[in-house]
């Protein structure tokens, strides 16, 4: 079993590249540490583990030497069949699991092999079937001050206390306008931060802060429109000239196209308590085609730093000005502090959809480096002077024109699935895909009684023929140190431990443990369904270290199984089905929690 897997993966590629003195750690120093990590208490109270989004656990009972002895401790069926992207939470001796639609919250008793203590059913609107057509996932809950907070598909943010009683329920949007919520909230400084989804439906993106105690809305910052609605004021000081000016959220769009301009906030939020700044990305511009929205289309496909108290923007950087490839800018950002010998540099690291590993100064938004971490044809690099991505003109999709070999494809080099970082190795563990796309012929399509001509997008494996990768990225030296290749896109997150083990799951249902230093696959277990969730690790009531993962295939690439899509039609699921034709032969749907220990 192990050797077969070794053949599949572990193609370690040393990459040589010049060291950058700007963030090379001092020799022998404890180099690069995540900001804002608490002492390890064995719990897992937010999907990213800590405000720095390290997904690093200080637990060390499980090591490369003993991980082969991992065994199932217990399993639990969620009774939901759609894609399970959430991270379980562990608070004290209780585990909390939130499911995809209908967004059931389960409390499981860890003193009793995961027996259900209670379940809370928010009963989201199902009447308007098909309105939220594509994505019924949920990326998890967050715990703080006795409340478990999560979002429902029909745009409610819900807080439930530890006995399963509703504390508050605030409606933030309307599913009848194409708006949904799928992201995991971040709770910090007594506030809950949440964002919306639905850019393709003409939804205007926002981040909203609610009071943790009452559920009342404290502020809302839109991703398009005039400065007063984007919460841009006197404190706003972006690093690059193209982000400076009045009301750019209006003037970088034709007419009032910004009103339905997308920039939804469906990904990850990080927080730096020392600088007192929130960081989060915005989705791609929509629903307009690129030709219909000349201009940079601020503030879509970029990243904001904001004051959590009043939402005021402090800086912004745009990954993809005038995005033409559907590269949402919503991925996770990991906050790291680098000891350079001459002081500490506060940086933010982002494995972006467009294929570059960005390192930004998180005080100012200045890019320190942007290095490809996979095969890119859609752009030629990032100009560090202007901050702008240099788009390859011949890879811009156009109607009535065949454009081949656009890499990365629309889901990007990496989508929402989150990276982890170990201060022990100095490596990021990046789960991602290796997909390219062709923009092909035209075909008649039909929505809401209205015929039109759609593009035929086909996705397929990039160079090497594998569709997924987990790579270890040396932050100081800006290079990949090892990679494990996978047949399918790696749509699950990773977690890394002080014990030196990285965990992740594959879409064909293998949950794997690899050596954090070498990438050697040490152990694997076949779960009941493909994995697109986020692994966590915790200390149980018995003092032992446990590892947990929700299996349950779905999401964009897994829709061919979870949504029973017909893979003969290669263009469905936005062209993803072509890349995932063989998935139904490897897995079936169904949400099952798996928990392991030695």
């Amino acid at each position, binding site marked *: 079993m192990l050797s077969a897997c070794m053949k599949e993966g572990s193609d370690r590629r040393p990459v040589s590249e010049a060291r950058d003195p700007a963030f090379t750690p001092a020799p022998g120093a404890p180099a690069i540490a995540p900001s804002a990590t608490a002492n390890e208490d064995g719990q897992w109270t937010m999907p990213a583990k800590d405000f720095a989004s390290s997904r690093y656990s200080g637990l060390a009972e499980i090591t490369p030497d003993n991980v082969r002895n991992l065994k199932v401790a217990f399993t639990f069926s969620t009774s939901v069949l759609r894609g399970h992207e959430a991270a379980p939470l562990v608070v004290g001796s209780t585990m909390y699991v939130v499911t995809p639609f209908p967004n059931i919250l389960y409390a499981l008793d860890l003193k009793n092999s995961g027996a259900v203590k209670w379940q809370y059913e928010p009963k989201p609107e199902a009447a308007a079937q098909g309105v939220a057509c594509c994505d019924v996932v949920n990326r998890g809950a967050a715990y703080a001050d006795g409340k478990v907070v999560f979002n429902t598909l029909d745009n409610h943010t819900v807080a439930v206390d530890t006995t399963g009683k509703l504390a508050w329920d605030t409606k933030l949007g309307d599913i009848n306008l194409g708006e949904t919520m799928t992201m995991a909230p971040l709770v910090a400084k007594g506030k809950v931060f949440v964002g919306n989804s639905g850019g393709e439906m003409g939804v205007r993106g926002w981040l909203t802060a609610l009071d943790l105690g009452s559920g009342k809305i404290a502020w809302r910052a839109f991703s398009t429109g005039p400065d007063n609605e984007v919460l841009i004021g006197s404190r706003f000081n972006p690093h690059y000239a193209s982000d400076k000016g009045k009301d750019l959220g209006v003037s970088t769009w034709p007419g009032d196209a910004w009103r339905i301009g997308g920039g939804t906030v469906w990904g990850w939020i990080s927080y730096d308590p020392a600088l007192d700044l929130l960081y989060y990305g915005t989705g791609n511009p929509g629903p307009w085609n690129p030709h219909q929205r000349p201009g940079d289309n601020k503030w879509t496909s970029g990243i904001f730093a904001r004051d959590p108290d009043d939402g005021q923007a402090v800086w912004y950087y745009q990954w993809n000005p005038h995005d033409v490839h559907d590269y949402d800018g919503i991925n996770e950002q990991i906050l790291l502090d680098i000891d350079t010998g001459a002081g500490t540099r506060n940086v933010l690291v982002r494995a972006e959809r467009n294929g570059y590993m960005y390192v930004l100064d998180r005080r100012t938004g200045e890019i320190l480096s942007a290095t490809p971490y996979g095969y890119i044809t859609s752009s030629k690099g990032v100009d560090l002077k202007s901050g702008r991505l240099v788009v390859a003109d011949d890879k811009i999709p156009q109607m009535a024109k065949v454009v081949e070999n656009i890499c990365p494809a629309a889901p990007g080099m990496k989508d929402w699935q989150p990276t982890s970082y170990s201060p022990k190795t100095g490596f990021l563990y990046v789960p991602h895909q290796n997909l390219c796309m062709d923009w092909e012929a035209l075909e008649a399509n039909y929505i809401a009684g209205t015929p039109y001509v*759609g593009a035929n997008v086909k996705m397929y494996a990039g160079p090497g023929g594998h569709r997924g990768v987990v790579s270890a990225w040396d932050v100081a030296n800006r290079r990949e140190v090892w990679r494990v290749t996978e047949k399918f896109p790696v749509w699950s997150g990773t977690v890394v431990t002080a014990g030196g083990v990285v965990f992740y799951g594959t879409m064909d249902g293998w949950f794997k443990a690899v050596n954090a230093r070498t990438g050697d696959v040490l152990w694997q277990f076949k779960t009941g369904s493909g994995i697109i969730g986020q692994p966590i690790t915790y200390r149980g009531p018995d003092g032992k270290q446990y590892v947990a993962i929700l299996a349950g295939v779905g999401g964009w690439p897994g829709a061919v199984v979870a949504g029973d899509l017909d893979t003969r039609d290669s263009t469905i699921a936005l062209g993803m089905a072509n890349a995932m034709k063989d998935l139904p032969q490897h897995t079936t749907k169904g949400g099952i929690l798996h928990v392991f220990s030695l």
Partner: protein
Amino acid sequence: MALPARLERAVLLVPLLALAAAAGAGRRPPERAAAAPVLRVCSDPNNLPFSNARGEGFENKLASLVGSELGARVEYVWWAQRRGFIRNTLRAHECDVVMGVPTSFELALPTRPYYRSTYAFLYREGSRFAVRSLDDPRLKRARIGVQMIGDDYANTPPAHALANRGIVGNVRGFLVYGDYRQHDPQSPIVDAVARGDVDVAIAWGPTAGYYARREPTAIAVVPVSPQIDLPYLPFVFDISMGVRREDTALRDRLDEILDRRRASVDSILQAYGVPRADRQSS
């Protein structure tokens, strides 16, 4: 009235499918001989002028017509007609027919087209923006409303055609999905013309024709010229009923009904103000 053999087969096929679904849902075992034939139609519950749950759309009228021709009771399966509609309904065997699909649609087996319509310009009667062509220079300075799809980089043909001519700053987008809480999610683009919020709008014919008649102001509905904007952007589409790809028997039966009851079909479409762009020869 003797039915040709293929028609008898089709009529038999429909109730069998309906009963199979009921049995799957844990109901009592099927009593095939006693069951009344049922025609299961997948339809949007809130998408006038095409259909709604109150049966007010022209596709509802057409379903009733076809149902009575088949001697079958019409049963609706309601589902918003968005991305995934065919997958979740027709292909999931939730129903047997969808009343409207483009004839060149690949996801379903189409009948012969029963109408051809066109995208149309809408403007207030007497307006100085009485345009007939996408190449009319007045479009550079008119305030223009256009329907938006926003799906998979795709959009409506007029949205593309205007962008191709550099007409972008004066264009306002109206999502075809509209506000699904309202009785008429698709009416705002025509309302905007009536109110003078835009000078010209470009909308798909059935939507344009239906709502233009209901406005307090006189609104002109004029087919977009050219019919095909080069290199390949059609503004006219043939519309068929759609069945599952393998369901040729039902398709044949529907073809026969649409042919025989053409006058009734035409009068339903006319009652809803559907602009026709059918070939003269047929």
